[in-house]
């Protein structure tokens, strides 16, 4: 079994890359669509520069996820979690270049509004480098910015399945989820599919990125079951994270990255639009932090730092859908509520004995759903109605959750998805990598 995986994995990954090579070779020339508006070369250059900066910021979110997830888990699994969070973006970017990008932005659809595919690999003609392609960015910037988004979607799942999932199986899941599922459903809205026609508004991806990741996380947590010792005859036994300094680094990196995640989603450097989005984003993050602090202080008597950090992220996830279309005040409210929900969410999922080591469910799923619906409530643009927002949220849940369940279930039946009890006790660092993260440090653990 284990053996088989060992063999399988390299093979699989090899395929992925192997495939990439010949195919990318085609460099499918995407004829640049006639741009809506024309822009001076200066304006195009500045727009593109901003979008590149935004791309860097989204990229660094991967470090943020790595730190948050690793820090909230035990030292004995640190290498394994860091490994996943380093390799998954790599797989995600290559997979997105190979199929994802042209699946998410097919140009024209095969099944109208639902499924399209512009061919394998990436490539463009000269026009792709001018404002003829888009006044905001070149073809290459477009791809890279979107690829970074895809990479983050995959890493969200990783948190909820941490400390027990088999490395190989999870890499396979991620490859599929990020190269196929994410772009396919993404095309419904950002690829100008059926949901965009209905005016479903998800500015930067509360739903398309975060709840899509969140649904995958829920599926994974359910199929895997809780970590050994997390729920002992009905009671929750906390399994403490090993390094809150790392988690803090992670949260600041994510907040920083969000400036690009939301700010870049304006798709140009439009001063008014972008700076407004940055303000709502920042206020929501701050309010989320405060909201979580107060909630945890009242409920837990003492303010729980990990909850506060979750709250900050929840505020960011919450504002992501409407950062461009809600008022400053609304952004504070949205952040505040998202922060409160984050704390309640963590406790709620523990009640259900769904073991989510890092709170990915309350941050990305709950926060993402809430944020998307909030647009329906607070939007200054009447076209975005609560019902369409609800419809959108539902559509993504109805497809992604079962899809993720299916993938995990198949993996479970084939190569297996959970490490042995012995390995789980000894730690995945030794089990999966034969390598500890903190050689020399002394640990005292009875879990």
């Amino acid at each position, binding site marked *: 079994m284990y053996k088989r995986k060992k063999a399988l994995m390299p093979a699989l990954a090899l395929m992925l890359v192997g495939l990439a090579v010949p195919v990318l070779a085609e460099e499918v020339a995407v004829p640049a669509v006639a741009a809506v508006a024309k822009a001076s070369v200066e304006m195009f250059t500045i727009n593109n520069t901003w979008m590149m900066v935004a791309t860097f910021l989204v990229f660094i979110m991967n470090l943020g996820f790595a730190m948050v997830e690793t820090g909230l888990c035990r030292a004995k699994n640190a290498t394994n979690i860091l490994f996943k969070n380093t390799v998954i973006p790599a797989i995600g970017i290559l997979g997105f270049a190979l199929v994802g990008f042209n699946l998410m932005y097919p140009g024209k659809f095969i099944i109208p509004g639902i499924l399209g595919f512009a061919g394998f690999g990436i490539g463009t003609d000269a026009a792709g480098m001018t404002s003829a392609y888009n006044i905001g960015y070149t073809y290459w910037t477009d791809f890279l910015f979107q690829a970074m988004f895809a990479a983050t979607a995959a890493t969200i799942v990783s948190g909820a399945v941490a400390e027990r999932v088999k490395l190989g199986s999870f890499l396979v899941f991620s490859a599929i989820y990020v190269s196929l599922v994410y772009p396919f459903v993404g095309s419904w809205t950002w690829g100008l599919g059926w949901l965009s026609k209905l005016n479903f508004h998800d500015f930067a991806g509360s739903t398309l990125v975060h709840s899509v990741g969140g649904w995958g996380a829920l599926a994974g947590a359910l199929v895997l079951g809780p970590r050994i010792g997390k729920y002992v005859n009905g009671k929750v036994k906390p399994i403490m994270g090993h390094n809150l300094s790392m988690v803090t680094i992670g949260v600041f990196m994510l907040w920083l990255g969000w400036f690009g995640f939301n700010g870049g989603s304006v798709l140009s450097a439009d001063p008014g639009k972008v700076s407004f989005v940055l303000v709502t984003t920042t206020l929501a993050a701050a309010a989320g932090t405060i909201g979580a602090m107060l909630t945890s202080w009242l409920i837990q008597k003492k303010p729980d730092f990990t909850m506060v950090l979750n709250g900050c992220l929840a505020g960011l996830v919450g504002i992501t859908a409407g950062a461009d279309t809600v008022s400053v005040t609304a952004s504070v409210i949205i952040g505040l509520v998202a922060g409160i929900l984050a704390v309640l969410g963590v406790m709620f999922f523990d009640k259900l004995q769904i073991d989510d080591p890092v709170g990915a469910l309350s941050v990305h799923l709950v926060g993402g759903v809430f944020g998307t619906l909030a647009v329906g409530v607070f939007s200054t643009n009447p076209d975005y109605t609560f019902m369409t927002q609800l419809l959108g949220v539902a559509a993504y849940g109805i497809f992604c959750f079962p899809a993720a369940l299916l993938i995990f279930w198949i993996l479970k039946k084939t190569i297996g998805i959970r490490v042995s009890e012995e390995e789980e006790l*000894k730690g995945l660092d*030794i089990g999966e990598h*034969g*390598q*500890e993260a903190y050689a020399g440090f*002394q*640990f005292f653990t*009875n879990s």
Partner: protein
Amino acid sequence: MKLIIAYIQPERLNAVKQALYEKEVFRMSVTNALGCGQQKGYHETYRGADVEVNLLKKVRIEVAVNEGFVEPTVEAIIKGARTGKIGDGKIFIHSLDECIRIRTGERGKDAIG
């Protein structure tokens, strides 16, 4: 007065504590240790080079008790620590000449508990 030293698997500590409580042994001291014995180690690989790790994580428990408590304590430790797998550990017992409670200066039997 006897001093009971036990080496157990780290993950059994809670079970052992539980078992000791049931026998009304509430005092103990714990340190983490590394042990090698019959249980075989595992391999780590680092940058292409391979290492055999045979000093394995263990927990060392010290319990000082009066004669009457020796057997119950031993039983409790075994109850909590035994899995039947190699590596379960060992218990060592030796006698104490004296025991002093720092706070009160009490000595001997009364100081143990």
